[in-house]
């Protein structure tokens, strides 16, 4: 396997989601037209060694994935690890719990990193669910927590979430000359349009 092909393998491994030609090319500093060739080489190298992994071409990108043949082994592993959550998943769950309903771009803006794979995992595990569409450009999907989420975290009600402690009672008179009171009608719910 050439160095570039190996780098390609690393890139797909770390990304965890499909990578488009352009993304691969910009990371490897190679031509976009070379990407397909690199992927074919990687594919051949994996086949030749009887690797458990292969390169999938999906959704306009490339992704490293396990072969079907090993599904049973993985199912056994997942059955045992199902009770655990990754830190990324916990962070995402927390953002949704406190901010719901919330869109994927909003979650990503707060976390500062891509989060679509994590949201998918949480949807698969039924800890999150789609709750509507936001009345905004592109009408992005809004996510919220589920009854399973409450059960999982031992909450009777979503309002039972612990609140951030307020370190000190903010004085009503603000010397720095910053925010005045917020109009009351704006403090409450966010504009959600159920679909």
């Amino acid at each position: 396997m050439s160095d570039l092909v190996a780098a390609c393998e690393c890139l797909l491994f770390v990304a965890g989601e499909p990578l488009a030609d352009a993304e691969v090319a910009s990371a490897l500093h190679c031509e976009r037209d070379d990407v397909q060739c690199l992927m074919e080489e990687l594919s051949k190298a994996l086949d030749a060694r009887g690797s458990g992994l292969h390169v999938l071409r999906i959704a306009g990108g490339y992704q490293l994935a396990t072969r079907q043949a090993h599904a049973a082994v993985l199912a056994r592993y997942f059955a045992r690890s199902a009770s655990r959550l990754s830190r990324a998943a916990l962070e995402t769950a927390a953002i949704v719990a406190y901010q719901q309903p919330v869109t994927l771009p909003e979650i990503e803006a707060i976390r500062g990193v891509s989060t679509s794979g994590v949201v998918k995992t949480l949807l698969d595990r039924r800890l999150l669910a789609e709750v509507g569409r936001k009345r905004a450009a592109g009408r992005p999907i809004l996510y919220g927590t589920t009854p399973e989420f409450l059960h999982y975290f031992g909450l009777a009600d979503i309002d039972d979430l612990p609140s951030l402690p307020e370190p000190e009672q903010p004085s009503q008179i603000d010397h720095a000359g910053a925010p005045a009171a917020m109009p009351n009608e704006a403090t409450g719910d966010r504009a959600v349009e159920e679909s």
Partner: protein
Amino acid sequence: MPTSAQRALQVRLPAFEGPLDLLLHLIRQQRVDIYDIPIARITEQYLDQLDVWRRTDLAIAGEYLVMAATLVEIKARMLLPKPPIDEDGASDADPRAELVERLLEYQRYEGPVEALRVWEGDRRMIYFRGAAENPDDYLLPIDTDALTPLALLEALRSVLASAGVSDSAITAVLPRRRVTLRMKMAEILRRVRAHSEGVSFSDLFDLPCAVHEIVLAFLALLELMRQRLVIARQRGPHADIIVHACEAST
């Protein structure tokens, strides 16, 4: 009359981790035996160093002053005639003994600290699967029994902290939804910090959106300005407001 050695020290200044670190540096620089420290000379240099810091208006941590007092005391005791060695031959009356022991104990960790630094660097050069979505890939998954409502709160705090939003009080009068405001602050801070040329206020929300989202972004901006995390500039009465990140102080 700062000597060139003192100037060199000044440059190195932030690297000292405390009085023991400074003392070890002086001892090595003078190439003296740690078991036979010329206490008068080292004390003088130590005090000179504190003077240099004082003159440059650097706050000197209390521990440095305590050590200064200790050094002066040892120096005074060294001037006294040596007590006669008692019958069981104990000669541990050297006033420097305790200090030397502390220096030696501190010095033992220099190798391990260096090793940890190398390993940290090596480890940062390897990546694990999913690192794209979980950049702190050394954090391990959490078991169910630890997944409590408090864990959610902790996770939320760590997200906010990594975006640069602290736990400090928020002055905006928002009876509820203070969390929402903090998250908006985190979002704005991340965006602003990613753009050295600043971000236009109107880019902080995607139009069309509800009026209260604009209000929220505005309040978050005011709060960030109050906490001196960002500054906003407006060239004219109706010009666009450009938001810049302040130099991170943390």
